[in-house]
Structure formats: C-alpha cells, structure tokens
C-alpha cells in the first residue's frame, strides 16, 4: 500500500542524509521525497511517499519518529488530504500532433513553457490521478524527457498537518 507521510524536521545539517540513510539502511523504499523550509527557518517540512504492508509502514513511522531531528510524523493514509505534484514534460511535436498536444494541455490546465523545433515542453500540476492521466495521453505521442518534483501534501481542514502537538 502506498503511504504519503509528512514530516516536520529540524532544518539542520545532514537531516536529509539521515532520513535517506534510514530508508536505504533498512530496505524501505522511497518513491518520492520533497523537502523545503517552512515559514520558520529552523524547521523544514518533508513529504515522503513510500510503499509496504502494515508491519513495514508501522516500522517506517516508528523509525522516523526515533530520529532526533524529526519533530513530528503524520501518515496521511486514509485521511483527507490535498496533494499536488508538478511535472515538466517534453513531448515530441510533429506538424500532425501539435494540435492534439495543445488540446490535451488545455484540458489538463497545463502551460506550454518551452517550444522547440520538434518539441513542446509542458508544465502540469495536479494530484496523482491527474498526472498519471495526462502522461498516459502523452505517451503515445512520444515523451522525450520527464522531470517530476514528487508529491507535496497537506491535511484538509483548519488544523495544520504538522502542528507540533
């Protein structure tokens, strides 16, 4: 099962290496990882997507909590949350396919951010399903290059996901 986990961590030297090392050392997988400062420069938020059965996920959450610089761990699984990922995708564009690419982009509210002699580069933001959908539509046209940010997520409602409680 895929789990999206948000972490509140001390913004200190080596904290990303610590978390990545924990995952590789224990054989947990990281599907994606996104980290940056919050409004408080001493603290960063990390969104991590991992996959495993219940016992593995329980270990992942507990091992993350055990790390000294990790302040709070929230597993968003089965909770109500907003998630987004941004992708930049360079698609092959021939005279015949240009129209279709632009149409697809418009339907998904993407933007053309670069035009080449034979390619379009699109910027698309959306949740997991939307991103998968547009990539499926663009694949038959020929994707030349794809870069993804990885997902960021936040609990719905008035409470902050990572309010230190």
């Amino acid at each position, binding site marked *: 099962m895929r789990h999206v986990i948000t972490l509140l*961590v001390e913004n200190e030297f080596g904290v990303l290496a610590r978390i990545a090392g924990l995952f590789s050392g224990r054989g947990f997988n990281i599907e994606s990882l996104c980290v940056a400062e919050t409004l408080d420069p001493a603290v960063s938020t990390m969104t991590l997507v991992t996959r495993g059965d219940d016992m593995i996920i329980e270990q992942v959450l507990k091992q993350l909590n*055990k790390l*000294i610089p990790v302040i709070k761990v929230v597993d968003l699984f089965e909770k109500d949350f907003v998630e987004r990922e941004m992708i930049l995708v360079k698609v092959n564009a021939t005279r015949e396919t240009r129209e279709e690419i632009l149409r697809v982009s418009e339907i998904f509210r993407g933007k053309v951010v670069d035009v080449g002699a034979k390619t379009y580069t699109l910027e698309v933001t959306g949740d997991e399903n939307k991103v998968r959908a547009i990539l499926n539509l663009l694949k038959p046209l020929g994707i030349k290059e794809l870069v993804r940010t990885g997902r960021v997520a936040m609990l719905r409602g008035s409470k902050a996901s990572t309010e230190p409680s």
Partner: protein
Amino acid sequence: MKKTGGQIVVESLKREGVDTVFNYPGGAVLSLFHELDQSSMRQILVRHEQAAVHAADGYARCTGKVGVVLVTSGPGATNTVTGIATAHMDSIPLVILTGQIPTPLIGNDAFQEADIIGITRPCTKHNFLVKDVRELAKTIKEAFYIARSGRPGPVLVDLPKDVIANSTEFKYPEKVFIRGYQPTYEGHPGQVQRAVDLMIKSKRPVIYAGGGIVSSNASKELTLLAERLGIPVAMTLMGLGGFPGNTPLSLGMLGMHGTYRANMAVMESDLLIAIGSRFDDRVTGKIEAFAPQAKIIHIDIDPTSISKNVRVDLPIVGDCKRVIAKILTLLEEEDTQAYREGLGKWRHQIERWKAVHNMDYQQKGDLIKPQYIIEKINELTRGDAIIATEVGQHQMWTAQYYAFTKPRTFLTSGGLGTMGYGLPAALGAQVAFPNKLVIDISGDGSFQMNSQELATIVQYQLPVKVVILNNGFLGMVRQWQELFYEKRYASSSIGEVSPDYVKLAEAYGAVGLQVRRPEDVVPALKKAFSIPKPVILEFIVDREENVYPMVVAGEPLNQMRLV
C-alpha cells in the same frame, strides 16, 4: 568568562560527572589533550582506538555511567567504528569525541580527514558536527543527554581543530530540551492494568528478560515480580545477571544456544512476558513458529522494537523499572500467593525438562573440556566476579555455565558479536572497579584481535585475568563447518601458529601461565586470581568440542540438537 573550545570541552565533561576518558592522541586533538592533562579526569591511553571504545563500553556496562572516548581525526575516527557499532547494537551509553580538520578544509580531502559523521550515521544513536564554538557546550550537554536517556546508545561529537582553538563566553546550559526526542518512561495505565489481568489468568507464564532490565536497573523489581507470582524467568544473552541465575526460578538463557528448559518453556507457554528484550533472531528461532500458544506482553522503552519481528498482543512502551513497579503495585490487590501455588504444576513440568538435558558434558581423560573451565571459574568466584568475554564458542559456554547473580557483571558483545571486544572491555571494567576480580574469557582467535592492549593493562597496573581457551580454531566457525559444510575447515584453523602466550605475557610485563591437564585447572585458577597483577592463563583445551543445545538457523526453538 572567556574560554577556548578545548577548555569548554574539559569543563563540560566535568559538569557531566565524567571521571575517566579512554583516549588516543593525534594532530587534530593536540590542544584538547593539552587541556585534559591538567584536569582531574583520569586519562587512559590505549594502543588502538577500537580498544578505547570497547574499554569505554565495558566501563559503561558495569557502572551504568556514560563511557567517554577521545580520538583524533581521520584514521583515529574510523578505527572507532567497530566499537561504536558494537555499543549501538547493545544500547550502551557512550560519548565519542573525535577530532576533525579545521572547518574551512572540510570536504577538501585534507590530511587525516574522514567524514565520520557520514560514516557513523547508521551506527550511532545520534551524531553532531560542531561548526561554531558558541554551540560547543550545548552540544556536549545534548550528547550526554541523548546517550544516557531513553534507550541508551553511542553519540559521536566531531570537533574541528579551529572550533577547539576559538574562544567564547562559557555558560553550561542548565537544561536540555530536544523537541524531536521525548522518550516515554511511564507505561500507559490502561495497558499496565490489562497486563496484570492477563498475568493472573495465565497458567503457563514465562518471563523473557533482556538487556533492558540491566539498562533500566530493574533487577530488583524483576526479581520481586517473578518471586511474587512464581513465574520462571528466561534471559537473553544481554539479560544474564538481570535475574539471579542461581535461583530455582531461573531458566538460564534462551535461544540458539539456550538451555533446553528455557526454550521448551517458551514454546509451551500460554503467556510470554517480554521485558526489555527485542525478539532477536538468535532468540526466536523460526519466527512463524515462535511461542505458538502464547499471548505476548511486550514492555520496552523503544517503540521500534515492539511488533518489529513478532506481533505482540499487549505492547507497553515505557521504562522497565517503572512499569514493573506499577505492575507490582496493582498486584497488591490480587491474591498472589494462591496464584503462585497454582503454578506448581507448570514449574514441575519445567523441572522435568531440566532432567532431559541439563548442560551435561563429560570431563574425562587427559583433555580439558572448555565447559569445565567455566564451571570451575563459576564455583571459585561464586558468581561475584566481573566477566568479560570475546565472541564465539567460549562466549556461549560462559553464558551457559557461569551463573550470573548480579546485573552489570557480564560484559559481552551480543548484537554485533565483535571479536576483540573482551580484553579492552575487561580493562575498562577494571579501571571502574580496581579492587574487583575482573576476568576476560577469551578464545585464541579473539585474543589476537586486540592483544596489543596488554600494554595498556600493564601500564595502568590493572590486574585483569585473561583466560584463553586455546583450541587452535575459530571454534564457532569450525562447529558450523562441521555440522553444515561437510567438515571443510576453510580458514578456521589457526593453531598452526599459536604464540607462546606465557612468553607473550612476560614480553609485556604481565604474568603468564599455561595449563594442559585437567587436574591443574583449579590450582592454576586459584593462583591466577591471587596474583595482584595482570595474568594470562592459557588452557589447552579439547580441539573439537561443540556448543549444545543448538537451534539450527531456520528451525523452531523446540527442535534443538542436543548432541
């Protein structure tokens, strides 16, 4: 008032109650040594940095205090890694101070530079690189706090040369607060009550006690609990001594080389009370078949240990000592005497298992059996010595034949199984307790891993007794090769070149004795124990003796090989 980083380190160590530092100098830490030499803290210079960490580890295990190490950068730091990993696996509180090159040079492949922070991230409880002298005092305080609190562990502090040379106002923080680190000490009251309810309903309970009992100083509480309810106690290698091994309720060690009755009791139990233990593979045997009839209560301070390998029915996160004390209070409401008497049948069943296999071996003929030596050491010391071991067959025989009666008297590398641990750990223990009998039980293989520490032992006049069970083999490897690899003794025979240990001892200025005949064993031990100097006592033992019982890897605990 302004102090240099070096002076701040010295002052901070003093504030933390440090009285001993195990060290080895080098370029990056010269100024630190300059300051430390003038302080009241005892400096123990070893002969290899790995030994400095093992010595601090032995010191920490037998005193309960944080062991302190100081080494230089580069190779000095990398030499500590095995020692740090050893302490990490066994949850031993250490603070390891490593020198580092000046901050502007970090990352430039400078002379004696090593990314020790990167290297030790997976094997320390936490580590710090101090980049500013103004952070130094706070960092040291945090390091000690992290090392000794919650589930203890080694903490490394990397000290660049320029940071140590810089000066700042010294103010030692009064309190430390780390928002990401808040261990839970008190067990959840609801869970504790449920545990008591499960206990008094059980008919075939077993307590499975581990190293956490020792770390938590919970021996007294554990003993009260076991005796009040009449529940037998099986101990892990790390838990030996946590419950007195010479009393009727003790089942001895459980697991791969545990006693027959301990393993059978666990497999037939209806309630397994795990306290301060982590269901390690050496203990459980085939996990799917472990304790098949038992409900499991698991009391541990580390949430990650709970339900990691084996799903437990009643987890209680908390400090063993406090949780057991709470249980004892709740038990005052119960008729514990009736319960204790009701378990008579279960205890009787355990006595019958004791009769099936009770660690018997035959000491006959001209060859000394290694088990005989351990038995005699046990008899002569009456369980009152501090015993360090190396790793291998001799380690298992020590766990089987020496009845540890008190906690913090058994120093052994359990989790990592580090050969070369015993001699330096014994020296650390002797530094802590100069007047106690400290014995290092070793094999000929393990002894040669850190034999250079004989120099340290003689230099500080530490009267450690080193008992070498010399069988000319890497015994445990040979045993597995005999049982599973068609007796192909690949790279396990070292007897071709066996040093004259008597001459070796004398070369360092210690006393050396060699024993070949069984009738000379007891007199030699008595003699060695009475000499107020370091002694190497070499016993030439039966070459191909095996450790039994043995649970073969992948087999359930009740399928033990007995011969």
